[in-house]
C-alpha cells in the first residue's frame, strides 16, 4: 500500500496509479457538498445550466462543517456518510468529477460510474473532524448560502489525509478489507 501526495484538480495519470488502501494527502482546491447541494447541482445539469464551480477534475468533499472559531478558517470538518449522495454522484462523475471524499461504502451504480470515468473515492476518518480541519487553509462559501452548514464551500487544503476506498479499477476496500481480515483470521 503506497502513499501519495496529490494536487487537485486530479489528472488521469494521478488516478491510474491509485489502488485501494493507498494513503493519499490531497492539496489544492476541493469543494464541499452534501445532500441538499447535490440535488441542486444535479438539477442544474439536467436543465443545461452552468454549475457554480468547474467540475472537470474536481474533488467533492461530503461535509457539513462546524462553525469556525475566530482565527480559524473552518470549524471541525469530518466526512459525512456517503450513501446519501449515491443517487446524484453518477451524474456528476459523467460530467467530469474525478474524486469524492466521504465515509462508508458506495452503491454499484457509483462504482460503475467511477470505472467508466476514471474516478476515485477517498475515505476520510469520520469523527477525526478537528484533525481534518487543521488541513484546511481557507474556506469560502461559493453557492447556496441559504443551506447553512450544507452550503457549497471552496476549500483550499494542504495534506488532507485520506485512504483510497474505491479505485478506478472497480476495487472496493469496504469489501476487500473485510474479506482479507476474515481470510487472515482463518489461517
Amino acid at each position, binding site marked *: 500500500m503506497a502513499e501519495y501526495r496529490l494536487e487537485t484538480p486530479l489528472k488521469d495519470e494521478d488516478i491510474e496509479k491509485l489502488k485501494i488502501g493507498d494513503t493519499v494527502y490531497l492539496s489544492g482546491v476541493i469543494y464541499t457538498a452534501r445532500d441538499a447541494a447535490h440535488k441542486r447541482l444535479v438539477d442544474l445539469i439536467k436543465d443545461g445550466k452552468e454549475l457554480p464551480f468547474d467540475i472537470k477534475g474536481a474533488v467533492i468533499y461530503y461535509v457539513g462543517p462546524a462553525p469556525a472559531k475566530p482565527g480559524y478558517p473552518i470549524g471541525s470538518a469530518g466526512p459525512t456518510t456517503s450513501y446519501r449522495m449515491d443517487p446524484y454522484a453518477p451524474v456528476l462523475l459523467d460530467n467530469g468529477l474525478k474524486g469524492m471524499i466521504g465515509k462508508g*461504502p458506495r452503491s454499484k451504480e457509483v462504482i460503475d460510474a467511477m470505472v467508466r470515468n476514471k474516478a476515485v473515492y477517498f475515505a476520510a476518518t469520520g469523527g477525526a473532524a478537528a484533525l481534518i480541519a487543521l488541513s484546511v487553509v481557507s474556506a469560502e462559501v461559493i453557492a447556496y448560502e441559504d443551506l447553512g452548514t450544507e452550503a457549497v464551500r471552496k476549500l483550499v487544503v494542504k495534506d488532507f489525509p485520506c485512504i483510497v476506498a474505491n479505485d478506478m479499477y472497480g476495487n472496493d476496500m469496504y469489501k476487500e478489507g473485510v474479506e482479507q481480515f476474515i481470510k487472515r483470521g482463518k489461517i
Partner: protein
Amino acid sequence: MRDINVSELTNAVKKLVMDANYYIPKDIRDSLEKAYKDETSQSAKSILQMILKNHDISREKKMPLCQDTGVAVFFIDIGQDVHFVGGDFEDAINEGVRQGYIEGYLRKSLVNDPVIHRVNTKDNTPAIIYPRIVPGEKVKIVAAPKGGGAENMSEVKMMKAADGIEGVMDFVVERVKKSGGNPCPPVIVGVGIGGDFEMSALLAKKALFRNIGERNSDPEYAEIEKELLNRINALGIGPMGLGGKTTALEVFIEYMPCHIASMPVAVNLNCHATRHKEIIL
C-alpha cells in the same frame, strides 16, 4: 423541599453540551488506545491513530471532536423534593442548548419539520429530554449529544418469544454487519430488550452510556454481552469499515420485564466519538 432556579439548569446544560463535544470520556479513550495497539492492518492502525490525535486537538483547541455535534439528548433525574422556580423547565434546558451550541461553535444540525420543509432551526433546539422522578432533592443531568451517522443505523424489532436468545443475537450481529462503515466504527452497541416498543429503544440508548468493561449485573446477560462482542468483532468490519479487528468497543444490554405476547428488541449504535457528560445539581 429544595428550590432550584431554572437558570441553574440553563447554565449547567450550556456547559455540558460544550464539554461533551470537546472532551472524549476517559474509558473510551483507553479502549481506543488498546485497539490501536491490537490492530495489525495498516489502514486500521492509521485510522485509530488519527482518532487518538483528534482527541488531543479537540481538547487543546476546544474544537468539537466531530463536526456532527448531534441532537442534544438529556436524561434528567429529578429528586421529588425539588421545586423548580423562575421559569419553565423545558424552556430552561432549550436555552442552555441554544447558548452552548452558539457560544461553543457547535454545529446546528436540526430541521424544523422532518419531511416537508426541513428548514434549520439555527440554534440546535429543541432538545430531546427524558425526565424521571426519583427520591431525594438533587437533579442529575446526563447530556448525550448524538450524531446522525450512528443513529441512522439503529433498529427496533418486535420479535417472538420463540426466536429465543439465538434470534436476538443474530438480529444484533446482523444489524451491525449491515451498518458496515456507516456508523463510524469502532462502535458501541446498545441493546434494549423487553418493555414495550418505545421502551426497548430507550433501554438501548441508555445502555450506550455504561462504562467500557462494565458488564451487566446479571451473569447470564453478561455472558451474552461477551459473546456478542466476540461475534461482532469476528465480522472484520474494522475501523471506519475498511477491515480490522475492532468493529465494536463494547456491547451493552439493558432489559426489563415485558408482556407475555411480546419480545421487543432494539439496537442503538454509538460511534467512537461518544459524547457523554453528567452533572449533579
